[in-house]
């Protein structure tokens, strides 16, 4: 079972790789819309990539209003 910190770290790794942002520039508390400079379509891409990576389903409405990596990790953690 992953810890919340591990899940958060994996999300940061995935986000950095997918959006080609240096990993060291990303922190758990960052607003990923701003930090990654992404729109809603790209947020859905991130969601899909996270679902595929963690093997979970994360309904869109659960991430509506979520904009930081740590809260996103928390939502995923609840479904692992």
């Amino acid at each position, binding site marked *: 079972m992953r810890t919340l910190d591990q899940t958060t770290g994996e999300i940061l790794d995935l986000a950095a790789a997918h959006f080609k942002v240096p990993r060291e520039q990303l922190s758990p508390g960052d607003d990923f819309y701003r930090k990654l400079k992404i729109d*809603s*379509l790209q947020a859905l891409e991130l969601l899909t990539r996270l*679902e*595929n990576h963690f093997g979970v389903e994360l309904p*869109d*409405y659960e991430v509506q209003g979520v904009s930081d990596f740590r809260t996103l990790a928390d939502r995923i953690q609840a479904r692992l």
Partner: protein
Amino acid sequence: MDENEGFMSDFSGKTLSWKLSGGIVELELHYAPCNEIGLAMIDELERLVAALPELETQAAALIIHSSRKEGFSAGGDLRELYRLALATEGNARTEGMRTFVHRIHHVMNSLDASPLVTIAAVHGICFGGGFELALTCDIIVADKMARFAFPELRLGIIPGFGGIPRLRRDVGNAVVRDLLFTGRSLNAAKAQALGLVSQVAGEGEALRVARTTASQVLKYDRHTTAVAKRFAKPIPLEELRRETELFCELFARPAVMEALRKFVESTDAHPYLP
């Protein structure tokens, strides 16, 4: 369109193009930003439907795909729909919508019933009317990054292009209710687990997989395939008729115009989230 227009084995239009080659018709949707289905696309889909009888004598398979990087299709053109609806009122507005829906149903039913084996190669967004278009196909091949959703209820309407009857044809009612009532989107793996998607392809590979599938289809006797298709994939015509009635009934409510107005005027950064 001109009904006397000659047969077009190839066509290139504003919203889509098609090409017949080696027994396979490839229909490419290329309308920016993400293949929104409005009057322009319906006009050109009707041209395809008019060409289908001739194409069906020369091909065994039809692949529908998108060249827009955003995805297969974001669904109905809500901005155009709102603009057109604003120009009319009351019964005229409802009747205008009914005419629009009848046209799209004619296209969808023609694709659904075609003896060609139809394959949707889906990537990215496949929402609303786009999902309904994919559901007319015999086989859906989905890129692993594809997402499917019916977000219509947030506008106070139900899917109006045949979505509910065709979804119900392929999956259980519990899934239909979940997708409709929450508006959530499904990824390709989940859609495959539910039986909506036949094959999941790697990123950027859906069209290639669809072509390989179409090549396999070509090996079999066309008549037998057409007979099998008619038997295995009945068109739920009565439910489709009922859907049109319910859609138009719901569309006539002032709340729908208000929801459309909010959508069109919104600066919400997350229009794809329910």
